[in-house]
């Protein structure tokens, strides 16, 4: 990246355009030759040049420019170097809308895909902007809102896809952004829309420039900040939506282009307004030309959008340190003057009793074969124990482990938004599983555990590197999680769009189904959870002190680095084991610690135990619903709990500050 700094912007543009043109020539050469010869009848080379290659090239340029412009506008109006159509969940929203329409209202497509996709991105965009407007578009709230909305849409879309796996490929093609064209309709409808929006953006350039100043100053200069902000955001949203509707989700171009422009020296907003679209256009052109040339020999279907996402998502990590994070003290909760006295042992005993009751009920009560409800009779008890007990045990253990990991991470980073799912440790574990699937045809359970542990540990090491320097600023850690989740999505998208059968297995893993678990592994998981949670309890004193800060912890005689390392390792172990069972999306690690605290369990030990019990109960409930709600079909417990967990995270976001 620093090498870019020495390049002037025109040189950079040239450096992108050169190889792109060379690659494009490779693609176009046969068609150009055919163009010279007089046409007689249907000449495939000529037709492909005129109605496929050229429209595709035009689409890449227009879409890239539009995304670059959209990103620039969003970054300006939101004063946030991480804002982009991808990071704000706009694409995920559109994707979900299309999945819904494909499955439940295919009639809507009579008017084309555009209105459906547009509606989806608009709803997602307004939701994210609405969430952050309450906080004056605070950079962090905004990107977090984007993350949450994106995850929620993603979870819902996965659930739909899993239940309708025969539509898998067509849903994923769109989600992975293919630029293939068979006529000029896409570029011809896209170009004028983008042009009109670009003209409006240019007309708004001056007031938009002023938005970089603090609101007090801009108001002092006689500018209605809110109007300009919403105006700019609306243009950016429309740009992203028309592109998404036209060609699908093209990840990260809207983030990369403005960033590269800025690093290469586009200092003023006017300069970025001019250069970002150009760089975006060139980037997408280059990527698409490379994909076209390479996909021939690879003999498989490679959507361009999945490639931009695979290469673009790591960029988020590089950008994290550039995000200005104001060090705020945690909010002083002055409403509570005295502590609510809770009888801690009583609360814990009640929780434990509740959990046991729930687990027993989950095993004994279920749907009868005729679909009605039924309690198990003694005669079929052995069978039912064989099938239901492992699932209940596994769900319970995974929930407890995730909750314990959540408590540890929240206390370790002094960040109540942290959890294995949010900061990407779970995504890392899943990525490890994905790698095992690529390397080994049928990985054993031990191998899966090894890979998922390695993945989770690598992620945590990365977070240490990126966020550790800033003293684990809560927001940075959470943002690092977005990058990882995005990368994971990109990989799965790539698999799935190509129709690779492994995609379904990966998707099954991500959905977090307890279906395949047998009694022995379930008992192992249970033993592991009891053991690991008990071990975690031994760290209670550290967990009490560490939130007080590094300096205080050190002055109280804690070897902070070593202790943190130990605790992080514990969190990784808990997460890796749990992710194998319920996937990366459950959000139990986020919810359970909060529920425990709301119950009045505030010290480390009671919170840890309480959270583990609550987490176990949540997963048992999710698994019960999953087994019975859509009888005889099974819904994955991990996704079901994510459907509750994501809105929970959103609520938390709204309550903060």
């Amino acid at each position, binding site marked *: 990246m620093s090498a870019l700094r020495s390049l002037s912007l025109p040189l950079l543009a040239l450096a992108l355009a050169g190889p792109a043109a060379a690659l494009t020539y490779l693609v176009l050469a046969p068609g150009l030759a055919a163009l010279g010869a007089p046409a007689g009848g249907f000449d495939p080379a000529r037709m492909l040049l005129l109605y496929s290659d050229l429209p595709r090239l035009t689409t890449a340029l227009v879409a890239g420019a539009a995304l670059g412009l959209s990103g620039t506008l969003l970054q300006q109006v939101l004063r946030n170097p991480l804002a982009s159509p991808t990071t704000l969940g706009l694409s995920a929203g559109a994707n979900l809308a299309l999945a819904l329409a494909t499955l439940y209202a295919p009639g809507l497509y009579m008017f084309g895909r555009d209105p459906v996709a547009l509606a989806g991105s608009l709803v997602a965009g307004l939701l994210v902007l609405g969430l952050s407007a309450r906080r004056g578009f605070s950079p962090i709230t905004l990107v977090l809102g984007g993350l949450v909305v994106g995850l929620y849409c993603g979870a819902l879309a996965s659930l739909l896809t899993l239940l309708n796996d025969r539509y898998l490929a067509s849903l994923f093609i769109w989600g992975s952004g293919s630029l293939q064209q068979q006529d000029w309709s896409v570029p011809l409808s896209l170009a004028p829309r983008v042009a009109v929006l670009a003209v409006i953006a240019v007309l708004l350039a001056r007031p938009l420039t002023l938005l970089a100043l603090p609101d007090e100053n801009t108001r002092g200069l006689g500018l209605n900040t809110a109007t300009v902000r919403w105006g700019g955001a609306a243009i950016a949203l429309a740009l992203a939506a028309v592109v998404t509707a036209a060609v699908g989700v093209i990840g990260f171009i809207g983030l990369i282009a403005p960033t590269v422009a800025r690093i290469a020296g586009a200092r003023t907003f006017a300069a970025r307004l001019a250069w970002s679209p150009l760089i975006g256009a060139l980037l997408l052109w280059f990527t698409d030309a490379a994909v076209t040339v390479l996909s021939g020999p690879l003999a498989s279907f490679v959507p361009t959008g999945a490639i931009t996402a695979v290469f673009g998502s790591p960029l988020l990590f590089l950008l994290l340190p550039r995000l200005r994070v104001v060090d705020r003290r945690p909010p002083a909760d002055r409403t509570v003057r005295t502590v609510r006295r809770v009888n801690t042992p009583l609360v814990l005993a009640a929780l434990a009793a509740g959990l046991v009751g729930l687990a027993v009920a989950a095993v004994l009560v279920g749907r009868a074969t005729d679909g009605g409800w039924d309690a198990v009779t003694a005669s079929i008890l052995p069978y039912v124990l064989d099938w239901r007990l492992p699932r209940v045990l596994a769900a319970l253990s995974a929930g407890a482990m995730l909750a314990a990991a959540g408590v540890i991470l929240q206390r370790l980073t002094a960040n109540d938004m942290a959890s294995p799912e949010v900061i990407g440790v779970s995504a890392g574990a899943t990525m490890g599983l994905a790698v095992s699937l690529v390397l080994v045809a049928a990985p054993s359970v031990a191998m899966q555990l090894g890979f998922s542990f390695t993945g989770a540990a690598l992620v945590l090491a990365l977070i240490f590197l990126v966020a550790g320097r800033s003293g684990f600023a809560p927001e940075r850690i959470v943002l690092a999680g977005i990058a990882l989740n995005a990368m994971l999505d990109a990989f799965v998208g790539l698999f799935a769009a190509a129709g690779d059968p492994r995609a379904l297995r990966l998707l099954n893993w991500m959905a977090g189904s307890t279906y395949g678990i047998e009694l022995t592994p379930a008992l192992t998981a249970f033993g592991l959870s009891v053991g690991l949670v008990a071990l975690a309890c031994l760290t209670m004193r550290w967990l009490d002190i560490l939130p007080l800060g590094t300096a205080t912890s050190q*002055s109280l*005689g804690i070897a902070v680095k070593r202790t943190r390392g130990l605790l992080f390792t514990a969190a990784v172990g808990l997460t890796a084991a749990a992710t194998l069972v319920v996937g990366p999306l459950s959000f139990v690690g986020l919810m359970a610690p909060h529920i425990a605290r709301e119950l009045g369990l505030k010290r480390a030990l009671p919170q840890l135990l309480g959270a583990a019990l609550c987490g176990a109960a949540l997963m048992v409930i999710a698994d019960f619903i999953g087994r019975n709600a859509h009888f005889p079909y099974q819904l994955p417990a991990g996704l079901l709990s994510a459907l509750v967990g994501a809105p929970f995270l959103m609520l938390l976001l709204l309550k903060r500050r």
Partner: protein
Amino acid sequence: MATPDISAAGFEVRGLSYTIDGASILSGLDLTIEPGSVTGLIGHNGSGKSTLVRLLGRQLTPTSGSVSFAGTEVRTWGERAFARSVAYLPQETGATVGLTVRELVGLGRYPWHGPLGRFGPTDHAKVSDAIARCGLEPFAERIVDTLSGGERQRAWIAMTLAQDTGCLLLDEPTSALDIAHQIEVLGLIQRLCREKGMTGVVVLHDVNMAARFCDNIHALKGGRLVASGAPAAIMTPACLAEITGIAMQVMAHPTLGTPVACPG
């Protein structure tokens, strides 16, 4: 674990230098912190006073030179042994989400009971004593977050007191407080050190506060020691001009008699 005699131990600083990213923060510092006294560290922003107290408290590792406490170099002390001897209160304290005053103060007992030891009767007694000494009894069961700034700072000081050390290091303990609370907190520190015969080191912004509450003052400027001595020795127009870089006048406090400086 051999615990050296810490009753009224002090610090010896020899040839202490600290650089960060090539920039020198402290260079070749020599000074002595007298046992059983309250020492003030004063100076400009960036003079190195906070760095010095963090080096004393082992929060940082010196680039060169040495810091000794009770005759032993601080880096050779064990983690918890050092924490039983020296308590350090940082300028920025972390989150106390949901903790009551008594619970926060109780955390100060960690160096004594460790990660797995029992929180015994001695621990309870020390906590109650610290709370009493800081006048926090009415607030003992209150959530720390709900206290006023001065009360909260007292709670933190009570936590360091529960650590039961012979030495107390405080980095700008009054920076976030209004004037009334500054007097309250500094008075408390002075009184505690006298009552328990502790060594106190306080980083302060305000020369007059240092003169009023400290037995000794070390003045830093650009990472070097420019003046050391009792308040009376420091509070002279010549000395203050050297420390602050502007002309200062000194007069006696009308009621207390301590020296007071003002620009002019």
